[in-house]
């Protein structure tokens, strides 16, 4: 930055903490990781909504502790700042246990950020959602299906505890067919009644890339 270019003292709608995390984001994934660096990855959001958040986790299985968390976000300043601050909250003091980290709520993230403009609140809700999605993927990989967090959404695959919400999320991200969804979620493999269920969800939600459907946004 050249000498004559300094940050002014404009009265922004964002708090100093939000600005700090936006201009100096912590823990984002700089380069694509080599295989094995992380134990699980998860993503929520869609281009139609304008926010996509990915999270990578490294977990110490003995202590059930999150030892590394990295993220990437497509979204506005508050989405970037919220993910950044969330990563700090999870990783402080050598990392929270899974049990502790799950308890971080959207309002905790908001408080840590020093508040957000009202219309931006949905962005911070995304960070904990992406985290839970990633944790669920971790639980599946580890075969710990009893730990999967369903958040009140209807479970459509009892074996893998995959929820309707998760399937819809993948459809919004561009999956068009049963095969594409299975490639992502392994849902309903060998269970014809689950496949029928997914076909219905595809029918209902396909093409919404061109018609925004953003459940996180206020109407």
């Amino acid at each position, binding site marked *: 930055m050249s000498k004559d270019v300094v940050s002014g003292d*404009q009265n922004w709608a964002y708090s100093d903490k939000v600005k700090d995390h936006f201009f100096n984001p912590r823990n984002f994934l700089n380069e694509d990781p080599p295989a094995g660096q992380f134990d699980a990855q998860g993503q929520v959001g869609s281009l139609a909504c304008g926010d996509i958040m990915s999270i990578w986790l490294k977990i110490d299985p003995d202590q059930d502790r999150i030892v590394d968390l990295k993220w*990437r*976000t497509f979204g*506005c300043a*508050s989405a970037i700042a919220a993910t950044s601050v969330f990563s700090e909250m999870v990783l402080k003091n050598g990392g929270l246990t899974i049990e502790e980290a799950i308890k971080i709520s959207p309002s905790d993230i908001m408080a840590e950020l020093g508040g957000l403009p009202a219309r931006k609140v949905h962005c911070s809700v995304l960070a904990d959602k992406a985290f839970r999605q990633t944790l669920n993927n971790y639980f599946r990989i580890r075969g710990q299906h009893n730990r999967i967090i369903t958040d009140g959404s209807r479970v459509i695959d009892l074996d893998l505890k995959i929820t309707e919400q998760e399937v819809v999320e993948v459809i919004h991200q561009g999956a068009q067919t049963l095969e594409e969804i299975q490639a992502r979620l392994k849902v309903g493999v060998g269970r014809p009644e689950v496949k029928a269920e997914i076909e219905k969800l595809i029918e209902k939600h396909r093409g919404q890339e061109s018609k925004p459907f953003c459940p996180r946004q206020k109407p």
Partner: protein
Amino acid sequence: MTKKRLVYFDHAAATYIDRPVRRAMRPCLNRVYGNAGSLHSFGRMAKNYLDGARQQIAGVLKAQPTEIVFTGSGSESDNLALLGVARRYASQGRHLITSQIEHKAIQQPARRLMADGFEVDFLPVDQSGLVSIDQLIGRLTDQTTLVSIIYANNEIGTIEPIAEIGHQLAKVRADRRQRGIKTPLFFHTDACQAAGYLDLEVDDLGVDLLTLNGSKVYGAKGVGLLYVRSGVELQPLAFGGDQEGGRRPGTENIAGAVGLGAALELAQDLKDDESERETQLRDYFIERLLSQIPQVVLNGHPRHRLPNNINISVLGIEGEAMLLWLDHYGIAASTGSACDSERLEPSHVITALGRPHQYAHGSLRLTLGRRSTKREVDYFMSVFPGIVKKLRGMSAVNYE
């Protein structure tokens, strides 16, 4: 404190008041304070200034002074045109045609009219933002009372073929007359963004109503006008005064009107030279953006666009994040991203071009003005590629 370098690339949002305009307005902020409706010398002086402005503007538009209605903004003029004509002639026809890329001051009143039982066609546009005249003519019915198409779009700068549409509508009118159909067919255009660069003579354009305002042409905010061709009647939006021929009540904003007159005259004087200069600067800017940053596309028409308008989509990143970084470097720009709108909806204009949502979320509008220089563009290009690289580095969307 070190002085911050400031670069203003948001002239389509608002312009400063140019010096000759300020000069013209000055007496009206000072000794000319009477009510133009008063009989005494103070009132007559105010009336003189107001009449002078009206005459000056009529000169620019090649219209009659009585055809100029001063309002409080471009948005108000758009509302008055749409609601005023539609409601006044509702007994003769309840169909309107407009486009999908109008300013919200046309779009929202049109929706209001639909809720009241009017039929409105929102014409689609092609990928560059142009309406199709054939489609427009095809949608006309004998119940159509008003067509409203923006002269040059405020977001993407695409210039619509207004004179050609006006010409075609004149033929439709003649045909209606021949068939004994009494329903009138009027043509309105919102020319707020066009005013500094394009022809405003209403007969050349074939328009019956035309919107202009001060804040986009180096005049003051809080003043607009609606040109209303003789014979076109309007149901006013407000009541309680005889000002502006009963079409817009309220004590007149003399300073604003005088400023608008001076601003429009100046704009028309500078039009040719300034259009050429800004077009060159615009094309230099676009060329650098497209060649120096990968995965950037230009929104709008490459040639039929306002000399001051640049609108790009930077894939993989979001507009508000770009704006904050640019602001950090003292640069003012705007975006059609949902994150920057109160309603969290992406730009209806970029979406109407048939582009995926990502294009709207990653859109950036840079609008030049009379004081914009190549040095400012070079300064922008010295910081922007780094901002894009940084935001793409942390984006969850792979832009390749």
